[in-house]
């Protein structure tokens, strides 16, 4: 369970970092976005494989869900603060990243319950539209992955991860991939 919780926290933080970097000076940093994406894929694979194993062992998935719903709300609010503090410190490459045109792996709708308090878009110069507030910290302009693409992404990230996740690529993934 530790691995699952850690994986989830890492994913949440990666999303937070990617989103906040979009409004940073100097524009999106490709290298940083790529690293964040890799970390997120890696964490997601481990999270899924850990969940699969726990499902197979007969543990109730719903139990897991309820026990974890409160957690992400805390982690997302706690990631907000360190990010603000470190923006002054880590001034070198800071928080400027974002993969241009990269399809967002997670369904925005599913993540709404995890977002916790909606973070106002402080740094953006653009007017706050309805869509911006609706999607919380997931930009809704990002493409949503279809079934086949998801499988493809998982297969690719399995290779990155260096783990044997053959079983995962054969499991038909539903549209809402991650349910916390």
């Amino acid at each position, binding site marked *: 369970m530790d691995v699952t919780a850690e994986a989830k926290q*890492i994913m949440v933080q990666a999303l937070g970092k990617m989103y906040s970097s979009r409004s940073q000076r*100097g524009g999106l*940093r490709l290298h940083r976005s*790529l*690293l964040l994406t890799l970390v997120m894929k890696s964490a997601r694979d481990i999270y899924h494989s850990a969940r699969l194993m726990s499902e197979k062992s007969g543990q109730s998935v719903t139990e897991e869900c309820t026990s974890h719903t409160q957690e992400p709300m805390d982690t997302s609010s706690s*990631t907000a603060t*360190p990010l603000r*503090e470190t923006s002054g410190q*880590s001034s070198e490459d800071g928080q400027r990243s974002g993969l241009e045109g990269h399809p967002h792996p997670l369904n925005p709708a599913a993540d709404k319950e995890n977002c916790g308090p909606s973070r106002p878009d402080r740094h953006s110069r653009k007017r706050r539209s309805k869509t911006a507030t609706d999607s919380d910290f997931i930009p809704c302009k990002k493409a949503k992955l279809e079934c086949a693409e998801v499988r493809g992404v998982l297969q690719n990230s399995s290779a*990155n991860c260096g783990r044997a996740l053959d079983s995962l690529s054969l499991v038909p993934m539903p549209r809402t991939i991650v349910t916390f």
Partner: protein
Amino acid sequence: MEDSRNTSGFLRDHNYSTEADIISTVEFNPSGELLATGDKGGRVVVFQREQESKNQPHRRGEYNVYSTFQSHEPEFDYLKSLEIEEKINKIRWLPQQNAAYFLLSTNDKTVKLWKISERDKRPEGYNLKDEDGRVRDPATITTLRVPVLQPMDLMVEASARRVFCNAHAYHINSISINSDGQTFMSTDDLRINLWNLEVTDSSFNMVDMKPVNMEDLTEVITNAEFHPQHCNTFAYSSSKGSIRLCDMRDAALCDKHSKFFEEPEDPSNRSFFSEIISSISDVKFSHSGRYLMTRDYLTVKVWDLNMESKPLETYQVHDYLRGKLCSLYENDCIFDKFECVWNGSDSVIMTGSYNNFFRMFDRNTKRDVTLEASRENSKPRAVLKPRRVCVGGKRRKDEISVDSLDFSKKILHTGWHPSENIIAVAATNNLYIFQDKIN
């Protein structure tokens, strides 16, 4: 001594200088007479070594400010609605050919060639204008004279001689001057371009890692450098921890490498952050041209150009951070890009760490030392005391524990004099110059 570091009070440790003063690059010129620093505010400050004089032997070879100029200004890309930072990412000196000094400085998008020259004479005795510069009434001029050069107070001028722009869609991370003295290359996340120093309106693309579909992107270029002697050879490092050596004689487009250096990953060290910490942040050829040095988050590696399968030597910079990667990811420190340098004889390598520590590794004796760049320790002619980080168990009196390290004090940029034991260490917005003096 300073055993317990205050990590919680950022404002307390902060010395209230602006972010613009943060040093972003440090570079000695080929003779070591000059030392250039670039900062986040787009300024370049050049230091010059004092001539040694018999009158003041204790001031032998100190570096003083020689020239300061604004190299880059913030710009705005209207098409992409993006601000282009003025931060100087790299400075590289050209070999000296006459009395003037030339350097290349770059920000994220534009490379500039600067000429730094001295003026110690000025012409006096014009016919058409008087000494104040006011135009004289031609009717009052009855004689003609030839203006003569009169000595004046030394003035150091910096002027931009070339501007190389509009060649990079992504952020420039490095520049490198070819040993031919005529060309240089600029590198961004996906492409490496070759320029002629005389020509600003065109460059040649040598390496292009951009995939057809950006969603397929798995690797970016992190650094590139020309071989110090072979003008046809260059190396570039990637975010996946590999280095490619390319020969420009093979083809115009150097997408196919002639050598590929990569060490297989140790499966026992596998973690969520393996990809991040294996990304190479700096690559440097040795002065001899026989070796390559690379820096990733936790180690420095020396590669023999003739052996691609694994590095010749691996040095642990701060392995005690391996168990802290999660926190370092949370506070963004895991993305810090440390540089590394060789000494003049390629026998010692140096790189920075946190808490204003920097590390030196002697390749021959296999000994290493950790030193600290701080005001308290750096009184003139004070001897630097080696520092130790306590990795577990009982902490000795002079040691500092891992949890007490100040991660906001990072040494990313250092320089080593090309022939002498003089090092320059940039600690946020302070520059420390240490010299090895044999008494």
